[in-house]
């Protein structure tokens, strides 16, 4: 009986604990993966998912607990050991060497040799074979820097596939994929499953979890909550287990009413093409306007152009009836615009600096006193305002922002933008990589701001949130406006049709 039980699992992590100074990141967490199955690992940001996997990969050393892989206790010291033993991972951050070729990246760490030298031909042939099998259309000799984000994602997945691993871990693999590409990814995952692999699938997207996964393990605040077959659960039950409280709705009730026109954009065209062409729309006070589109539809370019990050050579922007130029972000901020960027890590936060700095940096000239020195009192109270009104969970004002979870980082970034008292708030993927609970809070925040008469633009690739939060949705297709629809009257299929209009 005992023996039979054991052979049921590919990987068993039992009672794994890990502490960092001041935090118990993992407290007796369990994860068991069967062969031929896709196992969802869910939990709010900061619940301990990445920490658990880093313990598995030997990036962190676990304090206690046992890891059995193929019934043998293992304790990997480096990721190489884990890879050599058949555990591979698609990292969320897309760890790639941009300056080198696709095939150099795929075989990094295990180049095929011919005598003393790297066997380029074998590398090329093997890469090509894998890409053909997975139906990935990328030339192995292309430079990674020249690929789109979704192509890079597919290359990473092909790489994990090529290890012939028993366990493949995927950390939010669909965050930059279109729906079609997601389907493609699922085909690949099912191929892995047929081979007998166990796949650990981390995602915040419920729809994907239900479509793909067989079992689910839920973590909350570093503790193991439950592991169950997915068939026994529904979305609400999962969310309840994740947040540990009743969360009846995924979106707050819409209470805002759009008023006068706040922003008028006419014929906006970027100077460096390919980018946006002839973009025309308006935005009202108290309105939330969504921008939808496929990857590469140039959604981000719209807000970048409005914020002066992207040069334009035609078109006009008027704010409250007055024409504004917004040649650079500084000017745009003076004119009452604010932008929350998509790549939080790269352009949103100063990771090594503290909450105070990250809260105040956009508004720093407001704290000047008599001699041009900064007032600690004012800065202190504004930082506290950001922490309180955004409900940032942080040990203190002087904690480096990089050590907070993604949702809390995002709240600080939003709070920072609000300190400059913007009239037009543009948010690019404001809930990317953020857990369900924090998402709800951010939606609520957007509605509160709309109720205060601010105009809000939300770029998003998640259809449910566009449909749940916005008043109107502008659909971009290949750099042009394919249409603007009223959220209440539209449907997912209408938006998707518009999104492919200019392809």
């Amino acid at each position: 009986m005992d023996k039979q039980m054991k052979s049921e699992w590919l990987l068993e992590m039992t009672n794994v604990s890990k502490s960092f100074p001041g935090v118990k990141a993992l407290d007796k967490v369990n994860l068991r993966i069967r062969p031929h199955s896709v196992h969802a690992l869910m939990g709010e940001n900061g619940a301990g998912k990445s920490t658990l996997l880093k313990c598995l990969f030997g990036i962190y050393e676990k304090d206690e607990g046992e890891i059995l892989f193929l019934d043998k206790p293992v304790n990997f010291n480096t990721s190489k050991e884990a890879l050599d033993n058949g555990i591979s991972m698609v990292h969320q951050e897309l760890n790639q060497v941009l300056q080198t070729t696709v095939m150099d990246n795929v075989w990094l760490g295990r180049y095929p040799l011919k005598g003393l030298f790297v066997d380029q031909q074998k590398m090329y042939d093997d890469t090509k074979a894998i890409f053909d099998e997975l139906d990935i259309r990328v030339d192995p000799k292309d430079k990674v820097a020249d690929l789109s984000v979704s192509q890079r994602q597919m290359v990473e997945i092909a790489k994990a596939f090529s290890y012939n691993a028993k366990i493949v871990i995927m950390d939010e693999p669909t965050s930059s994929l279109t729906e079609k590409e997601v389907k493609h990814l699922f085909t690949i995952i099912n191929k892995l499953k047929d081979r007998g692999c166990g796949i650990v699938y981390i995602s915040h997207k419920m729809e994907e979890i239900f479509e793909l996964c067989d079992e689910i393990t839920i973590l909350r605040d570093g503790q193991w909550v439950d592991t169950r077959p997915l068939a026994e659960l529904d979305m609400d039950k999962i969310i309840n287990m994740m947040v540990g409280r009743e969360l009846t709705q995924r979106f707050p009730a819409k209470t805002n009413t759009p008023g006068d026109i706040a922003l008028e954009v006419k014929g906006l065209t970027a100077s460096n093409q390919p980018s946006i062409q002839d973009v025309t729309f308006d935005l009202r006070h108290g309105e939330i306007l969504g921008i939808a589109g496929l990857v590469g539809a140039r959604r981000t370019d719209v807000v970048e152009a409005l914020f002066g990050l992207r040069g334009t050579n035609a078109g006009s922007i008027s704010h409250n009836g007055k024409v504004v130029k917004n040649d650079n972000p500084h000017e745009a901020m003076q004119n009452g615009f604010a932008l929350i960027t998509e790549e939080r890590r790269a352009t949103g936060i100063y990771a090594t600096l503290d909450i105070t700095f990250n809260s105040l940096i956009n508004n720093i000239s407001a704290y000047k006193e008599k001699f041009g020195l900064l007032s600690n009192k004012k800065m202190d109270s504004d930082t506290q305002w950001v922490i309180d009104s955004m409900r940032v969970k942080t040990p203190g004002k002087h904690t480096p922002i990089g050590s907070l979870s993604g949702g809390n980082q995002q709240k600080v970034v939003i709070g920072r933008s609000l300190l400059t008292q913007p009239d037009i708030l543009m948010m690019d993927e404001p809930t990317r990589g953020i857990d369900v609970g924090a998402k709800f809070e951010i939606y609520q925040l957007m509605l509160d701001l709309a109720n205060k008469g601010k105009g809000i633009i939300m770029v998003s690739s998640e259809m449910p949130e566009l449909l749940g939060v916005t008043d109107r949705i502008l659909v971009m297709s290949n750099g042009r406006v394919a249409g603007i629809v009223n959220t209440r009257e539209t449907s997912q299929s209408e938006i998707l049709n518009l999104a492919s209009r200019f392809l």
Partner: protein
Amino acid sequence: MDAVKRNQPLELLKKGGIYAVLLILLAVIIIQEPSFLSLRNLSNILTQSSVRIIIALGVAGLIVTQGTDLSAGRQVGLAAVISATLLQAMSNVNKVFPELGVVPIPVVILIVCSIGALIGLVNGLIVAKLKVVPFIATLGTMIIVYGINSLYFDYVGASPIAGFDPAFSEFTQGFIRIGGFRLSYITFYAAIAIVFTWVLWNKTTFGKNLFAVGGNPEAAKVSGVNVARTLLIVYALSGVFYAFAGMLEAGRVGSATNNLGFLYELDAIAACVVGGVSFAGGVGRVSGVVTGVFIFTIINYGMTYIGVSPYWQYIIKGGIIVFAVALDSMKYNGKK
């Protein structure tokens, strides 16, 4: 297709700007002094570039890994002084180790290259294991190596070490005459270093790991590349290159003091960046490094040839470094 027509002249400038500058300078030099175009000058330029190429190839590998090496010049100096003391002629009355016979050149190469590898390894350990940024790490070892070299130089008499064994002079100053053209032996050694580095960078696992570590250390790590070991090897290797260059330099100049090699690292680093090796890491080509060295040698030699004041040469050299790197940045950070 999203291929777009870009501003053609600007693109051309970005790609070939540095060559354009070189051609303009050459044109100016040749118009001023048509006799510049001679086989003799060509062979002199090749000879003068050779040692610099070896040093630059050493430091280029470090720049590829987002590193740098301020200790390069001092390492060259140490190797030069050690080689000089081991390779003095028996007939030399000032021979510092009279009881020492003539040491065969390959043995000296082995000795100084081992010392170089050791110093490089120390640099590598400080960078890879103690996690000190390369600028600071090599600033420290630069000063330490100079101190060691000066102690040794003091010990052997504190006067320039010269009067080399004829075999050593032949090894470093000899040449093959092809008509009016003299091909120095040290040009051969530089060629060997070029081929070795090219093969290492482009054809071996180590080379690929080197560029991966330089381009994205995190990616290299999660793919199972031993980042620390890669760094240790490339630093040790750089020490070997400097040491070999130092020995050649002693022989080429004909004497050595503890000040030989002073600021050579800056010339080498300048040649690398002008040749397109990026300080951001992960980018660089052997041909670029070699071109970079030639550009500086031609400027030096050519402008001296037409009698431009060395002070003006400094200004022009500095301008070229900034211009070249600015062009390079434009390539990578195109405005949105």
